[in-house]
């Protein structure tokens, strides 16, 4: 690549050390602290006492938490599937579009991603609310209002909408790397569009697809704002559970145990994403 290896005095430590130290203090230590706290004993009077116990983890195996856990994983799965359904065609379109079209398309994909999730959810509240757009149309037709908000479907709609760019961006990068000549060759040899997609594009874009799915899934199972605003009290998810136990009921050791499990789940997903990205970057360099 561009920079030749230089063996000199280790200037690099002076450059990377400030951020590394900063992250140790403000990222690593807080997460170690959460793991430690998850083994402390809950105390109704002092919040926690430093007596080690595994009760916080054992206690998670009860029906009410498992319901919340399964619901969270299910909502994550459904929103990921919807993101694939809408995200794949969009990613393909952007990857193969002319430069100008792609730039405009990318702008309208990244812009919503960067606007606060609260605001995008707000829009859905107006669309799906009791007096919202959809119910307005329904009542204008003389029909009964539908309860569109505060159920799992609403949360899935919200999550999929908020996280679809996480699916499109890695997928797009993957599809861009596929030589269009391969598609043309398949077509010239008589393959139909579906066959070309299934036998050429889909297999070659798999790293991007997997990265996209893992990013969306990991964001969806740890979401808080969307389930809170669109699901209300009925659709409790893990993110809500952690928030309530920390800030409302002060069950810190318990919340730490849930958070620790969620950290393990999401960082393992992230490792897979990183490994996939590295591999496809290397393949490109090799090509």
């Amino acid at each position, binding site marked *: 690549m561009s920079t030749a290896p230089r063996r000199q005095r280790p200037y690099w430590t002076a450059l990377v050390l400030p951020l590394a130290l*900063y992250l140790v203090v403000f990222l690593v230590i807080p997460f170690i*602290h959460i793991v430690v706290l998850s083994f402390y004993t809950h105390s109704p009077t002092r919040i926690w006492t430093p007596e080690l116990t595994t009760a916080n983890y054992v206690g998670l195996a009860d029906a009410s938490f498992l319901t919340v856990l399964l619901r969270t994983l299910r909502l994550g799965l459904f929103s990921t599937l919807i993101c694939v359904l809408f995200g794949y065609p969009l990613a393909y379109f952007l990857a193969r579009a002319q430069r100008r079209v792609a730039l405009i398309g990318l702008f309208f994909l990244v812009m919503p991603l*960067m606007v606060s999730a609260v605001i995008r959810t707000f829009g859905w509240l107006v669309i799906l609310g009791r007096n919202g757009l959809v119910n307005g149309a329904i009542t204008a037709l003389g029909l009964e209002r539908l309860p569109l908000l505060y159920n799992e479907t609403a949360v899935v709609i919200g999550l999929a909408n908020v996280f679809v760019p996480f699916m499109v961006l890695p997928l797009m990068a993957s599809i861009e790397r596929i030589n269009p000549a391969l598609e043309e060759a398949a077509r010239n040899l008589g393959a139909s569009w579906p066959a070309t997609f299934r036998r050429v594009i889909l297999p070659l874009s798999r790293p991007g697809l997997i990265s996209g799915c893992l990013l969306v899934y990991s964001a969806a199972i740890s979401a808080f704002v969307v389930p809170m605003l669109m699901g209300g009290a009925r659709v409790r998810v893990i993110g809500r559970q*952690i*928030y309530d136990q920390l800030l409302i009921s002060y069950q*810190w050791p318990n919340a730490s145990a849930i958070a620790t499990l969620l950290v393990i789940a999401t960082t393992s997903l992230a490792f897979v994403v990183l490994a996939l990205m590295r591999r496809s970057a290397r393949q490109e360099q090799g090509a």
Partner: protein
Amino acid sequence: MNRQMPALLKPFVMLTYVLLLAPLAIVIAVSFGASPTYQFPPTELSLKWYRGFFGNPEFVRAFFSVSLVLGFLAAVFASLLGVTAAIGLVRFRFRGREALEAFFLAPLFIPEILFGAALYLTYARLGIKPSMTSLLLGHVVVCAPFVIRNVMAGLVGLDPRLEEAAMSLGASRVQAFMKVALPLIQSSIISGFIFAFIISFSDINLALFIAGPNSTTLPVYIFNLLLFEGDPSVAAASTLQIVIVGLLIWLVQFLFRPRALL
């Protein structure tokens, strides 16, 4: 357009964009309506919710004194830490370089709600009261990866012969970097800075945990009002957010052409 694309692709992509942008468009439309409920489409146009927004000192404070200031400071500190780290990662080869890069980018992959919870508990244990500073310290962590990505992309694309030429003409290595490379990666640094600002400006998950009563950010204030069904001045505030973020992304994309968006 590629004529090999199936006929249904384009309409489906349009539909996806409609669904993606509809929530934002509707918030903007509601903010210009006159109805005290979130009415769409608005039956008459009015600016009264903007007057409502600017007439509410808490809103003005959350927007101007907290969110804008916080975003700017977070971007400054994230850029200082991120630019130096990116230079170290690209310009030097050392053992564990890839692992260090993964460590620096880790905040991108850690759900913000968990990071918020972790910081909240650490501050509580150390007796640090939630304030703008405590929130700023957290924002720098999540903003820095965006600076690193942009600056690394800029540095990798730079021809090393430019600096070698400067050095053969008598510049020291540091001089060659400062006078040749740095001006050339200026646009990457600026787009990293802008992304860092936006991440802090739009953040809700960290702020919900570690913002204090005097450091309520605009997204948190909007969130609270939505929970209790406030009037459409929430829509006016949201519209201002959308416009600011939209302009900044447009600026980055059309002026600097960033190579690292996510």
